[in-house]
């Protein structure tokens, strides 16, 4: 059973784009994160239901113009997001 990833619910976040970056305030933790793509897009894609990495990659490919989507890079981004607490592994 592949690892599922779940993002913090949208109403626990204040998402504010600021020129090239996105500032995110996480209400549950009181932390502020300044993120570059694809992190905000990953959070949005995981907002509704938990997904495994392969499904997430497919969803991102469909929604955005990803050139050469690397599954390993996606796992690395997900690991970073798990460390911040914005994403949880199930």
């Amino acid at each position, binding site marked *: 059973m592949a690892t599922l990833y779940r993002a913090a619910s949208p109403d626990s976040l*204040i998402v*504010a784009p*600021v*020129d*090239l*970056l996105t*500032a995110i*305030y996480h*209400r549950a933790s*009181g932390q*502020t994160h*300044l993120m570059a793509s694809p992190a905000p897009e990953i959070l949005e894609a995981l907002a509704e239901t938990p997904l495994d990495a392969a499904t997430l990659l497919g969803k991102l490919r469909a929604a955005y113009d990803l050139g050469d989507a690397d599954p390993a890079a996606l796992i690395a981004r997900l690991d970073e997001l798990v460390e911040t607490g914005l994403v949880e592994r199930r």
Partner: protein
Amino acid sequence: MRHVFSVAIGPVGFRVGSDWRGPVAALEQLYASYPKPQDGIADFTVRLFADRPWRRFFRPKVMIGGDFVLPEAAPLSLEHGLLAAEMAMNLQMALGQRRYLLLHASAVERDGKALVMTGLSGAGKSTLAALLMTRGWRLMGDEFALLDPETGLIHAFPRLISLKNEAIAVMEMGAPGGTFGPLLADTPKGAIRHLVPDHRSVAAMLEPARPTLILFPTFGHDAATRKVAPSEVFVRLTQASTNYVALAERGFTALMRLVAETPARAIDYPDTESAIAQVEALWASL
């Protein structure tokens, strides 16, 4: 506590208790034109004390205490007692202020609009603010600008202006009629002398102002100006705020609003006259 002093600086009330008369006498003289805390109740308490009874008299060392303290703070000599008091009050603000978002910045006001100057120590924000005060601007503060999360306005915190080293001579010339404190030589930060904000700045200290320009000045280069992107402003201001995290969501939304609504510029300047000219030019262009 043997000697007691209290004062309101902007919207914040302080009381200072001291084992020695000296620091309290200096505070009374320099803050003579300031009001007392509202209702006679201070927001923050500061204590200047001797850690051993004999230290009150024999090679006295002033320990800093109060509501909020840093555990390993080094004591100061009694001749620097005024500095100890100012540092202690700053510390209460830095560690305990919860109502306003603290920006580590100087601020001056004209026509109800605030110019906020921020940057590393030594960039000259205190000196620039003091000089602008002598050129018709109202001084709001030289160390902290208070951002009200409810209104987005800047509130004044006009403590004694802290001039260091070369800036002392600059302001002694620039403000010949000014009220200065004693020259404190050989402090951990070099020579320090305090300048009392002028009457107008003290009288208007409860009037907020709309932030209109955020400036990042850097001293020691040929005159230059550049725009600063909102993301950079946001990061630099959070780094410069001691209570951003403590204010949680209110801090985030207040800072996002400030960054979104206020133009920001970085200026390099070779000397203070140049800086003032650059400021006036920028102000006129906005």
